[in-house]
């Protein structure tokens, strides 16, 4: 039992740099803000109760369908909170507002006949960040605190900066794994061995998806049964095995890009819009290593430049 607790603690709370979480916060909220900037949720307020089919969360918590002007106010506040969360101004409050209002706005469309699944990871990620100290680095708050002498510009490594990133990892792994299990539970290996995916790829061409397929390549894949079955095998394998990425570095190197490629493939061949889900991939990037590599390259370039300049001066003198 003690060993399990030790492993749990090490997985979630091993010290990590604040800058990595700060970079994830900046990129996640920044991309979400840009993605949602043009999106208007307020039209959902104009439909009557005939369309209102509340999902569990809204029904249980008695969350109402707001009017058009009220939703417009909520979404304006939400978008402002996304921007403030990205730049890191009043970060903790902004992230809390982003989570509460975002859960309402992202959940709202699902009360109109169909629950789609492109945004659940965004809700989980926003929730984790709302509880986190992601504003301790790469934020205006941190710059202001450092300038006023209230804190150092570079906080020490801490478990506070590890668990929100791991939270998103685990949420993503659960989502992928659940999708794989669903296929195996409802269809078994027939999902892979039959022409099911080929028929699905063709069916998606008939304007029945929330987004149109970006290409007609799905028809090409469907034409060759072996290609469609290989894609089906890869999909179920990536989804079901994705939790291995949590515990194995080798599996992570393979499964994380494969999962992203699968989402891109779904968008390109079938249509469903997983763009918001893809934004959560910023949490898989070891930004401290990316930053260190970039700094190393810049320093090396400066050294070469200084060496060349010194060489030129010596040459001119001689």
């Amino acid at each position: 039992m003690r060993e399990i607790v030790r492993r749990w603690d090490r997985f979630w709370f091993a010290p990590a740099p604040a800058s990595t979480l700060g970079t994830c916060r900046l990129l996640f909220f920044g991309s979400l803000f840009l993605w949602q900037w043009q999106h208007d949720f307020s039209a959902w307020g104009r439909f009557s109760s005939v369309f209102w089919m509340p999902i569990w969360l809204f029904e249980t918590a008695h969350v109402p369908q707001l009017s058009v002007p009220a939703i417009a106010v909520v979404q304006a506040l939400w978008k402002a909170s996304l921007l403030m969360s990205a730049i890191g101004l009043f970060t903790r409050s902004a992230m809390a507002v982003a989570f509460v209002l975002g859960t309402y706005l992202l959940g709202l469309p699902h009360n109109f006949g169909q629950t789609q699944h492109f945004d659940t990871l965004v809700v989980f990620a926003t929730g984790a960040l709302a509880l986190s100290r992601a504003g301790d680095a790469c934020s205006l708050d941190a710059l202001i605190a450092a300038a006023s002498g209230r804190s150092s510009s570079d906080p020490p490594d801490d478990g506070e900066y590890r668990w929100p990133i791991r939270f998103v990892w685990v949420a993503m792994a659960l989502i992928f794994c659940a999708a794989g299990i669903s296929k195996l539970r409802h269809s078994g290996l027939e999902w892979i061995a039959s022409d099911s995916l080929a028929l699905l790829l063709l069916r998606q061409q008939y304007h029945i998806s929330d987004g149109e397929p970006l290409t007609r390549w799905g028809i090409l894949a469907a034409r060759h049964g072996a290609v469609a079955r290989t894609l089906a095998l890869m999909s179920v394998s990536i989804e079901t095995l994705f939790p291995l990425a949590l515990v194995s570095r080798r599996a992570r190197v393979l499964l994380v890009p494969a999962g992203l490629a699968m989402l891109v493939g779904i968008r390109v061949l079938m249509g469903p819009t997983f763009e918001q889900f893809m934004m959560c991939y910023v949490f898989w990037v070891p930004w401290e290593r990316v930053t260190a590599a970039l700094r190393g390259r810049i320093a090396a370039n400066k050294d070469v430049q200084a060496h060349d300049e010194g060489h030129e001066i010596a040459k001119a003198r001689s």
Partner: protein
Amino acid sequence: MSPGRRTVVNLVLIALIAGSAYDIVRDQEHWPFSQYPMFSGVWRSPSFSWLRLFGVTADGREFPLDANRFIAPFDQSRLPKALRRILDGRDPDTRVRQALAECLARYEELRLQDRHEGPRLAALRLYELEWTIDPEAANVDRPDRRSFIAEVQP
């Protein structure tokens, strides 16, 4: 990290795992938790049916509202499923006509905002279309069967 805060965070982590596991094991959905059942069924039939709205112009011409811009914020997946649930529920005739009236009003609102290029409509009709899936998807605009369900006028 203080012990109290670590306890709160641990409870949140356990809630994420337990909520997800519950829906996966019970094959249920409690958004944002879910068992993620999309595309999990096996497709064996080469044919399928789908509900679709058609606009009717003043000269009687019909055209399918098969792009999201005509029906936003709904999309071509959500709206047919919502209409199906209405048709399968209580008092379907009255309720589906009310739903169509709202879709027609929304179409016109989007048209006046130049959000789509569609003409002014004299009526909106709901059909159930049935296709035999073509290997080239060449019959998208030519379903095998078209069953009229309801019509509304402005």
